[in-house]
């Protein structure tokens, strides 16, 4: 880890000011992702700005929804009664993040903004697009955990955030501040598919901006289902997961939100699956059809074709959970 200077601002204003530095300044939340990257010299800031004391760490009701501070610890999100009542898929995702120790340290903002888990990105030897290099090692290499959607390149990572997926599905907005003001960005517009111009990042956050809040609209009456497929039950990243929110009109699905995780460079909304659900009644057959629809556009790499089947299953089972059906 390269030596760095450390700033511990007390509020948003100080924090964004501290991010402006002649060298490279970066925010540190729970630190669970950035410190590991710094130890591996993937990231080498000259200054770390602690945002845990500067940003909001509370969960507050607003307009029938919730406003979640970026400094809220993942454990506190997972165990929050309002969150689990209004947004059960967020609780379901949060309790599966990392390990107890990671959930105790990691923050909501850090989870959303963490860098890719890709093993090429995370090893210094591989000078890939995301490290300023001129290639992605995945297509010719070991791509068993890489993307099956959004694979136009240049990078084939999967987005690492578990929380981003249900946030997007629930229509969250992210509040962002910088020295020059603040803005709100819909979660749906926050994450970016890689292009040669933006490949160094996974979202629209500028280097001097901080994500301060996740603002969740009132969920209305809905059915919720979340399903993660994990190789290991203990600490592991999902092979694929799906979050499903269904609004019902009587026995019929009137609207559906289906978002997939760990399958694309961004949290991946599946409009195909949503279309397969709307107008249908809840059943295992509907769920299976949604699963099939979800993967119709999949474009796997050489060694991750199995993730198509895994993703199909995750969608099917998430719908079944929303329907209150037994999944296995």
């Amino acid at each position: 880890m390269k030596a760095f200077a450390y700033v511990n601002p007390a509020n948003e204003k100080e924090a964004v000011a501290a991010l402006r530095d002649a060298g490279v300044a970066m925010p540190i939340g729970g630190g669970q992702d950035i410190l590991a990257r710094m130890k591996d010299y993937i990231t080498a800031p000259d200054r770390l700005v602690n945002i845990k004391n500067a940003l909001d760490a509370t969960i507050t009701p607003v307009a029938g929804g919730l406003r979640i501070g970026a400094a809220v610890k993942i454990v506190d999100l997972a165990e929050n009664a309002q969150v689990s009542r209004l947004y059960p898929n967020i609780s379901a995702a949060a309790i599966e993040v990392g390990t107890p120790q990671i959930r105790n340290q990691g923050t909501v903002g850090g989870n959303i903004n963490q860098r890719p888990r890709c093993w090429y990105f995370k090893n210094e030897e591989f000078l890939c697009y995301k490290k300023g290099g001129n290639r992605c090692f995945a297509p010719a290499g070991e791509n068993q955990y890489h993307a099956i959607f959004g694979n136009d390149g240049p990078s084939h990572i999967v987005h690492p955030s578990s929380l981003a997926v249900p946030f997007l599905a629930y229509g969250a907005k992210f509040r962002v501040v910088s020295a020059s003001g603040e803005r709100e960005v819909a979660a749906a517009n926050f994450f970016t598919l890689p292009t040669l111009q933006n490949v160094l990042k996974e979202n629209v956050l500028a280097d001097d901006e901080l994500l301060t809040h996740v603002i969740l609209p009132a969920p209305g009456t809905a059915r919720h289902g979340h399903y993660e497929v994990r190789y290991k039950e203990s600490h592991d990243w999902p092979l694929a997961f799906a979050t499903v929110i269904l609004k019902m009109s009587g026995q019929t699905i009137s609207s559906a939100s289906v978002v997939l995780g760990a399958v694309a460079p961004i949290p991946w909304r599946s409009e195909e699956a949503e279309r397969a659900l709307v107008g249908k009644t809840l059943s295992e057959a509907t769920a299976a059809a949604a699963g099939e629809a979800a993967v119709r556009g999949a474009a796997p790499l050489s060694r991750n074709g199995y993730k198509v089947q895994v993703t199909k299953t995750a969608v099917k089972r998430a719908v079944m959970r929303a329907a209150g059906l037994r999944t296995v």
Partner: protein
Amino acid sequence: MPNFDQQPPAGGGAPTPQGRGGAPGGAPPAGGRGAAPAGGAAPQGRGAAPPAPPSALALKYPWPAKPVLLGTRVKRIDGPDKVTGRAKYTHDINRPGMLYGRIIRSPLPHARIVSIDLSAALKAPGVKAAYNVKEPGAQVMYQGDTVAAVAADTEERTKDAARLVKVEYEALPHFANEEQAMDPDAPVVFMGGNTRPGTAQDVGDIEAGFKQSAHIIEATYYTHVITHVCLESHSIVAEWEGDKLTAWCSTQGVFPSQQGLAMGLGIPAANVRVITQYMGGGFGSKLQAGAEAVIGAKLSQMAKLPVKLTLDRKEEHLDTGNRPSAGAKVKAGVTADGTLTSYQADSWGTGGAGQGVGNLPIPYIYTFPNRKRTHKDVYINSGTQRPMRAPGHPQACFLTEVLMDELADRVKMDPVEFRIKNAPVQVPSAMYRTYLPEGAKLFGWDKRHATGDPTPGPIKTGFGVSVHTWGGGGSGTQAHCDIMADGTVVMKCGTQDIGTGTRTIVALVTAETLGLPITAVRAEIGDTNYPRSGGSGGSTTAPSAMPAIRLTAAKALEALFVKVAPTLGVSADTLVATNGRIHVKDDPTKGVTWKDACKTLGADTISVDHMWEAGLSSVNSSGAQFTEVAVDIETGIVKVKRILAIQDCGLVVDRLTCESQIYGGVISSMNFALYEDRILDRVTGQMVNPNMEMYLLAGMSDIPKIDIILKDMPERGVVGVGEPPTVSLSAAIANAVRNATGAAIRSLPLHPHKILAAIEQQKAGGTL
């Protein structure tokens, strides 16, 4: 210590009553050695030495018929030190003025070093020493190969300085996997060739055997490379006083490390003292000092200050050994009634750069009367293998035991019944004919369905079984016992405790022999200043050390009897020590307490040496493991639901720590089957998962219910048990997955992609 073949065996052999029955790789008692040299000629070199007759002491002190402590559940004596953090491992040794060392390693799998520039590093803050481990012009043969080293006053500054070392490389052709190395068009990367034929065998007439066969299976089986992942990384704290080195090493052998450091540094072995009081995990890779220890000691020598050099996790994955891969293209036959006929295999495997897989005892355990085998060691540009927990056996077991289930299916026999039919002759070290039916009954094997779970739904369950063997004998260890006038007992032995409980059983056997509680004995181990012992490898620690401890304690006790006897007015040979007293054998009232007995020593101390003798230990063990798994056929995820492990290890010394080793072996085998995988990028040859996040290991939620049946065979003496229980579960899991899904599972690890592909293949036409 056995060394070169021409040296006569030390100590002689004490054949166990059944001879060498359970030797791996073939059918005891005669013939059938899996990898016996071709042609059947008697190998030259070592001759069969007549067993040394047991001494009078050994005859007088066999293992007690009615032990007080032996075989009971005795708590680890160093448990309190470990749970409180008081136990000092090599990583925990902090010496005054100590520097931190670090090795600069090659990022490339094969390259020539063009230049190394240490100048910036030498000028960096806090740096006290740096040197080239390899000189320009030399080649690095794998990612992680050593290039240079540096030491500075804080670890952070050492890492900074290491990054200032500028190395220029010229990349050379490399192999990232066996396929690339075996390509006939590949350039020659390794001296002696990229592959090399290994031991062959040709026994009987395989063609005749195939002609008798009602069914023949031809298939390819494969196991992958895994790394040791010792939690305490390979490390040294080196401190010089003049030309004498004291080295705290995270090692499985203080004496092997002493020799390695001496030869690596070019100094007399007598000038090296190695200490290993606590050691954080050793599975074979720590039997040698390793380059890392020599480099740490050199840095210390150069800087004239103590140096701590602890490898980081990435270095551990890259350059501290691995378990080699093993594959075999097999053709095997069976008669209609389920008798094995012929086994033909072309096997291969890689142990990395210039190293092969070693002996692969296939076919494992079972008796194929006709066998023909070729083997090819394959060299790739990865870190070199080091012995890993039962070398060759987990691989050979998988390659054979999966085939056995497939053969059983062909003849429509139950896998347990089929194994019993073809198991080697029943002897105390090969108890398959007993363990298989016993385990089947306990496990509820009668509930096993035929191949392919017929129940609806995505979750399919299946049962699997596998058996194993291992050596685990001992010899040679020496010990020293002091009994002092105040009653203090100290047993010293240069063996080391790698977590198996050696310190505890040294104290336990001493206490048992002296009739004392275990708390009355101080066990001092893990130091080359103590009497000589071997490395803790090959499951030899307990069978080597326990006879030495027993007899050394007995010799000390006899000396005490001589002192005490006159005060009791009896002759020394009438005395025994039980329950904290020394008394006449048939009259417990005629005696004195231990403390009073020791007072007769006056100003004297009893101080005796003795060593291992035959008769108190033996060799070879056997075991069987059963498992039930659940396979989600829509995701390919395998969950192990429960495990039953039956294991013998001769005389059980401490039941509690012995069971712990079996649990550990089983879990390690489960990791091998399901999770662990050293993954090299096929293009660049660099490891993509050199950490503990992407190199997967089971956590608490992945651990199934595990039942252990520990067979006590006191009449056999002590047999080591560190390795055998880690051999067979991976094959049993694969068999259970096959039983659940009906799909052929012929390689590890059982990653979801493989399971789903196997199911697809089976649906598309099947492989059964």
